[in-house]
């Protein structure tokens, strides 16, 4: 589903974020990426999202070489990927419902379909009764679940998460990880960047370890 072939990323100031990384992630797999901050976890996700382009090497997502995706095609590419951020990236000037509906509005769904799907996604993350609330009134864990609902509402094939449990206590973190596992079980390829080794080593999934931009372990299942 996702393939990195000898991918390097050097930022303009000369910092090497990734060095010759080759890794393959299968369809339906759930994979953790770990490493210290600055090891290149986020860069890996950014390259998949086309928020950055690699300096060298080739990234392939769902059979498409990302080098062939021009900037016009980036929105379409991103619609096929759900993303969850550490800081949730929610819009506090609108309701939970409208936050979750955003990807569907962008993709141009009919409003009845939007209502149906948003409620299904909110139900999945256990926030159906909060759809009219403003996300700012929710707890950190609830906000993160709104973020997850938004990421999965468009039924993407790929789900990316960058430190999704970064600000949460262990019990809430475990709940969030369970959610990701559930999505993985229905066929979504899930890629989670996390430095919470205690939590992720309990979960028996492949762990890709990066150190200073290089792949240390976990290149194959």
């Amino acid at each position, binding site marked *: 589903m996702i393939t990195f072939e000898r991918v390097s990323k050097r930022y303009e100031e000369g910092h090497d974020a990734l060095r010759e990384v080759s890794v393959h992630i299968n369809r339906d797999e759930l994979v953790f990426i770990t490493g210290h901050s600055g090891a290149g976890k986020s860069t890996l996700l950014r390259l998949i*999202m086309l*928020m950055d382009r690699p300096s060298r090497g080739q990234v392939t997502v769902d059979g498409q070489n990302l080098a062939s995706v021009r900037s016009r095609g980036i*929105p*379409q*590419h*991103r*619609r*096929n990927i759900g*993303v969850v951020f550490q800081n949730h*990236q*929610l*819009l506090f*000037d609108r309701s939970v419902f409208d936050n979750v509906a*955003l*990807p569907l*509005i*962008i*993709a*141009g*769904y*009919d*409003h009845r379909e939007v209502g149906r799907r948003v409620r299904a996604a909110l139900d999945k993350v256990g926030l159906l009764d909060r759809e009219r609330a403003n996300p700012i009134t929710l707890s950190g864990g609830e906000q993160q679940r709104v973020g997850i609902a*938004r990421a999965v509402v*468009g*039924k*993407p*094939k790929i789900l990316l998460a960058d430190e999704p449990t970064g600000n949460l206590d262990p019990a809430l973190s475990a709940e969030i990880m369970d959610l990701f596992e559930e999505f993985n079980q229905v066929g979504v390829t899930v890629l989670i960047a996390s430095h919470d080794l205690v939590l992720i080593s309990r979960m028996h999934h492949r762990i890709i370890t990066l150190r200073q931009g290089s792949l240390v372990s976990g290149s194959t299942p």
Partner: protein
Amino acid sequence: MGRREPVRRKEGASVSRTRLRDQYNAWIQHHRLSAADSLLRVLEHPGSSMLTWLVIGIALALPVCLNVALDNVSQVSASWDSPAQISLFLQDEVAVDRARQLEVELGARRDVSETRFISREQALDEFRTLSGFADVLASLEENPLPDLILVTPVATLDGPAVSALRTQLQGNSDVAEAVLDMEWLERLNSLMDLGRRLVLAVGGMLVIGVLLILGNTIRLAIESRRDEIVIVKLVGGSNSFVRRPFLYTGLWYGVGGGVLAALVVSAALWFMEEPIGELAMLYESAFHLSGLGVMGALNLVILGGLLGLAGAWLAVSRHLVHIEPR
């Protein structure tokens, strides 16, 4: 939606047609949504929105007022029957018979459509009744006015040809002086041309000012919604999707400005109506100040809307591209 594209395409043309219709509906729906949302945002801050509207309204009203004034002046000058007329003042020693004969001769010319002889006595009578200087005139020993033949050239004659005709008539030995009555009208017309240019120049500058003001307003709107733009782009919003609400914001500012401009112009006309009416009465003229009219007001609103769109486009094309998820 797009995610399913490769699968659905195999299903045939009917599916892709409904997909197109879905996309069209979604596009319309987002336009409606953006328009309503932008309008609500504009109305959410009535104070600052009103300021923007006023700035645009006044900037548009100024050249429009000038233009309305010029239109009225040209309406007045057009009502003065303006085919060029040449006044031939005859030499004192020319007898009335000779003058009548000259009138007929000139009237027979192919380039003259009409002649009229006004004898010095007739002229004096006319002057007496019109000027109110009857007593003064009565005390004069002799009539100071010359005989006069008014020559109206045919309408097809243009300016230089009429001038040439005047020179030719001036050459006649019976004629003391041939005066072309067009001259003051020409002066007025060229003054009006100057006025129109001035309106154009002032209007152009103010339009640029309006564009810049709108561009800046939209730039601020973009800045205040930077986080939202980043998120929308992250979940797959295209540039046109992100652009749309800001273009509508510009449109609403422009339309509001156009409406205010129409109101300002109407108010100015209303303010001027009474003194101008009095002035017209003094000149025994039926002149009536003509305003913008419904079409003029509508055009002003449309112009405002277009300027709003253009200003928003200016800001959006400059600033939106630089807001990318980091």
